């Protein structure tokens, strides 16, 4: 992951109201006004939030798409993901998981701790506060859901969250996402067989064909499928190997609107580089799909493109198709298993 220096600065000063503009330009007047509006919308400690969302959902959506002010991001993420409610409903549970339970995944987690955002100052220090809290959150989750346990990739989710909130808050946000507090649960990303990864990839493949027919055809000719480049987009919600400033803006929208923004951003990336990609042979195409040009990484360029790509309806339809296909396959395999017996 490319670490943006201003990203780090902002993150670690998240209590200060000064924040850099969205292009890294310091815009005191505009930025302060924006933060004031946001504070009013949230209320003290989030007290007015629900009320505001109910009254003016479209205003909230529009403001979130423009980016949550960095100093309020941690709080707002907890409000929009539903994790704040989980935290309040489960006092003491996190502590119990961290301190008293043991997890079968402890060694796996330790193996990966220093391999998660290894160049980020917060996680760099061996056994430092960053690494310790990352370990605790992942361990707690692996106990909380022993079936899922710890899966590589979760660390990037937890790591991103820890830049903006406490361990306990990050844990409950992870729970809210994976168990589906406000959107559909995403634990299938990490369950055996990675069922949700498979579903998202099949939906994405179809969307590529429909939105960019020429590129879709080129992919088929070159035998490139989305598993080769997009699985990490879904598994880590763009927190792996994307610049922080872009990842954060995606997460703002992702937590409020759900996973469809991952599809939209993925499609926007392909759209942005469409004319180059279409010329490349396999061995240049795959690297290009993992390494987009810097100008495509500008959230203020990429996100408006992403929002202009409409996917909601098709996603639902494709989900149905995927379900049917899977059921068909399941029946086939159980009936063939019966025949064998």
């Amino acid at each position, binding site marked *: 992951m490319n670490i943006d220096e201003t990203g780090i600065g902002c993150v670690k000063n998240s209590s200060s109201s000064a924040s850099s503009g969205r292009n890294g330009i310091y815009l005191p007047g505009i930025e302060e006004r924006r933060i004031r509006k946001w504070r009013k919308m949230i209320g003290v400690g989030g007290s007015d939030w629900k009320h505001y969302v109910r009254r003016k959902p479209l205003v909230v959506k529009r403001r979130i798409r423009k980016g949550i002010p960095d100093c309020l991001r941690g709080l707002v993420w907890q409000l929009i993901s539903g994790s704040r409610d989980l935290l309040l409903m489960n006092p003491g549970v996190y502590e119990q998981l961290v301190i008293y339970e043991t997890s079968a995944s402890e060694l796996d987690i330790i193996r990966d701790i220093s391999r998660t955002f*290894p160049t980020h100052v917060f996680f760099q220090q061996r056994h430092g506060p960053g690494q310790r809290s990352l370990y605790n959150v992942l361990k707690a989750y692996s106990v909380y859901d022993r079936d899922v346990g710890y899966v*590589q990739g979760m660390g990037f989710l937890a790591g991103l969250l820890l830049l903006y909130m406490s361990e306990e808050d990050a844990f409950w946000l992870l729970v809210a996402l994976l168990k589906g507090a406000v959107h559909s649960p995403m634990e299938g990303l990490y369950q055996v067989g*990675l069922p949700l990864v498979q579903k998202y990839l099949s939906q994405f493949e179809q969307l590529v064909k429909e939105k960019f027919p020429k590129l879709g055809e080129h992919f088929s000719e070159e*035998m490139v499928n989305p598993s080769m480049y997009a699985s990490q987009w879904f598994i880590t919600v763009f927190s792996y*190997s994307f610049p922080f400033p872009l990842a954060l803006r995606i997460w703002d929208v992702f937590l409020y609107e759900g996973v469809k923004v991952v599809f939209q951003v993925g499609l926007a990336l392909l759209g942005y580089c469409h004319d180059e990609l279409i010329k490349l042979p*396999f061995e240049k195409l795959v690297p290009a799909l993992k390494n987009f040009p810097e100008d495509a990484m500008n959230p203020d360029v990429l996100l408006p493109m992403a929002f202009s790509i409409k996917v909601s309806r098709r996603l639902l339809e494709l989900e149905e198709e995927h379900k049917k296909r899977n059921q068909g396959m399941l029946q086939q395999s159980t009936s063939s298993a019966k025949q064998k017996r």
Partner: protein
Amino acid sequence: MASTAGGKSSNAKLVLLGDAGTGKSSIVLRFVKNQFIDFQESTIGAAFFSQTLTVDDASVKFDIWDTAGQERYHSLAPMYYRGAAAAIVAYDITNQASFDRAKKWVQELQAHGSSGTVVALAGNKADLIDSRKVSAEEARRYAQDNGLLFMETSAKLATNVSEMFSQIAKRLIEAQPAGNPSGTSLLLQTPSSTMPRPSSCCSSS
């Protein structure tokens, strides 16, 4: 993709398999960029690299898939080893469980991979001799019994990494049927056909 003078040039798809943290990405990074990073980010999904190697007067362009090691990602692996000309199965000499896992990968390649795939077993982190848990003898015997190339490697110290790729290249070139370059070999002569293909044993075409 011009051929080298007098020699031939070909493409080979190569896949790295093995438990998480055994050093697959580090081996590739050493081979492709001659670098080593102490804290290599774990691989999510799979990563792709390509690198050309010249052995004698022939050159082989490796298209390399570096996969995620954790068991949970197993279901993504077949598309990377299917149709591969070569596979490197890595384990960590300081970790017995990673050697057991390597054997599982070898079995899986034997059962579901392409019959001509050249498989190399890499006992990585050979620099950590003080913490050795898997003896070189045991691994060598296992490799011999299963017809695998075997080397202990250190991506950190650059020991045996390029050697391993050279040996793989040599085997691939030897396996190439003379006079019939596009025969059954998985070493592909056309630069554009390095993408995953259905394995010869299962495809109907």
